[in-house]
């Protein structure tokens, strides 16, 4: 982990973002356990370095497209966690007034084009935002986050091909957490590194350690610069892992097929703990720096939980709003 290059403030900001994601989702999990949350949620725990590193390299006016596992992407873009929490509980103060839920949070004011319940469904949408930026010469870029599983959908292929053909300013961030629900990516592709697919489109394909926020940041920064300069898209494969099952409540029995200790091995690489340990050991920061951040984040999280709980449900008349303009 290359902490040397970065300022203390920068590194602590990343720590804060990742810690906030983790805490946010711990509360979401609590909601689920307590039966407060309608439906399901897909937790990003363990993958925090990916969204954090990528979004740290974006400008405020850039776009991202997210997935069913989107909490981390949204928090990394600075979405309001109060409104996220409220949405997850189906309350009227949620980003989508309770109509979307965890899997459909959208925040256009932060350039967030929406989470998406259809695997692969968001990839062309982010690509379209990049088309807009190119045509209007706005200098914006778009990031499309998606999983290893999504990379087997036709939309992955079609989108990257068009972006490559037309040098669109888009960055494809493939979060390879080894599984699509229970299916091991190694059983349904013959491609050890999905980044290799970039070759077929004539664009760079980069592999990074998705547990290391600095490495993710560097790859994203290079890709974003390339995109902004007009040189076209990049595919970044982030090797990562999710702590929890596919969704809250999934016992994830399938993990042990290849290795008994798969989960534990990956948990040892926790992006949050590792960053902290590295900063402490290289004396980039003191324990009290982290405590201060943690205390502040915990307070914010608590507020957002209360906000969400207190927010009312939408009135039933809302059912018929927002279909047509």
């Amino acid at each position, binding site marked *: 982990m290359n902490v040397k290059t970065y300022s203390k403030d920068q590194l602590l900001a990343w720590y804060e973002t990742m810690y906030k994601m983790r805490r946010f989702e711990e509360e979401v999990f609590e909601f689920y356990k307590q039966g407060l949350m*309608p*439906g*399901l949620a897909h937790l990003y725990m363990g993958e925090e370095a990916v969204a954090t590193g990528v979004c740290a390299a974006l400008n405020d006016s850039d776009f991202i497209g997210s997935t069913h596992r989107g909490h981390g992407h949204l928090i990394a873009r600075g979405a309001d966690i109060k409104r996220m929490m409220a949405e997850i509980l*189906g*309350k009227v103060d949620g980003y*989508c007034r*309770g*109509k*979307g*839920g965890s*899997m*459909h949070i959208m925040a256009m004011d932060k350039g967030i084009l929406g989470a*998406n*319940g*259809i*695997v*692969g*469904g968001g990839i062309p949408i982010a690509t379209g935002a990049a088309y807009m930026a190119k045509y209007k010469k706005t200098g914006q870029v778009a990031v499309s986050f998606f999983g290893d*599983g*999504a990379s*087997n*959908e*036709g939309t992955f292929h079609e989108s990257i091909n068009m972006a490559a053909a037309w040098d669109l300013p888009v960055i494809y961030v493939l979060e390879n957490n080894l599984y*699509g*629900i*229970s*299916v091991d990516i190694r*059983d*349904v*592709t013959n491609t050890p590194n999905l980044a290799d697919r970039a070759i077929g489109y004539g664009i760079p394909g980069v592999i990074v350690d998705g547990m290391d926020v600095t490495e993710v940041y560097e790859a994203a920064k290079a890709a974003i610069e390339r995109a902004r300069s007009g040189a076209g898209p990049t595919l970044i494969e982030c090797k990562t892992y999710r702590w929890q099952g596919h969704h809250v409540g999934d016992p994830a*029995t*399938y993990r042990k*097929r290849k290795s008994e200790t798969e989960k534990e091995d990956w948990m040892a690489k926790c992006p949050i703990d590792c960053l902290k340990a590295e900063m402490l050991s290289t004396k980039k920061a003191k324990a009290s720096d982290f405590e201060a951040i943690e205390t502040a984040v915990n307070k914010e999280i608590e507020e957002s939980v209360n906000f969400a709980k207190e927010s009312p*449900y*939408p*009135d*039933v008349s*809302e*059912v*018929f709003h927002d*279909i047509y303009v």
Partner: protein
Amino acid sequence: MKEITYAQAICEALDEEMERDENIVLLGEDISFIGGNFKTSVGLLEKYGDMRVKDTPISEAGFVGMGVGMALTGLRPVIELMFSDFLLVAADQVINQAAKIRYMSGGQVNVPMVIRAPIGAGRSSAAQHSQSMQAMVSQFPGLIVVVPSTAQEAKGLLKTAIRDNNPVLFFEHKMEYNKKFLVDDVVEPIPFGKANVVREGKDITIVATSSLVMKSQEAAEKLEKEGISVEVIDLRTIVPLDIDTVVESVKKTGKLIVADEAHERCGVGAEIGFQIMEKAFYYLDAPVGRVNTPNVPLPFSPALEFPIIPSVDRIYKKVVEMVK
């Protein structure tokens, strides 16, 4: 008789058919090691191996199309789409290929394949995981469209689907999977195109699909206490449509409600209502009524979702409105 869940009934139908015919191959996401997202193929990987119970990548158009090729060359694929909403990702292979190949080939070939897919709202799954696709696919000739009600019905109809030589869309209701039902020890295939009068009545007829059959029966029980006698028909298949059974019933009751969970516009209610108008116009004492999901995407929040799901209460009120 035994008590099993709807998901177990599906499992049993798959198992009994696979045992009988080695040409049956299952394809779908997460169907093997974990036995399916809704646990409808538990134990089948262990019994039949991974060429017959195949976990696919997330490539619906690809694996449905693969199923078409398998069906053309002698296998009988049974494909699971995790949610019926994902039919839209594979729609070309279902509607332009599977449904039309027999016709386009002048009858040279059959496409014996089954696509199983869960329908229905009620789990706060929001707009992309709560749809009921039976009306959409019914628009297109060449497909058989099955909407089973109970576990017993699901088991019998799934057997028929697997033995049928046409492409069959088999819609399971996701709110039923974990419910327990009494099921015969031996369930024979149930013929397609023959609706089932599950309750006799004389004041009004409800023809219902899928879980709305049970909801209609529940409503009918309540209504009986209030002196309203309701006939309930389980439609079983939308294509082929057994309109005769509905016509007979309407001749007796003079009133009809069609209950189906797909969106209202251009739905099953419209079609059946239209045909009843054509075939029993002078027997109708009132316009046909329908109970559907209204023409809105499914919202996430339970505060919004529950009021629009076709419920016992909505069916009950519709009957009262039409009978009073």
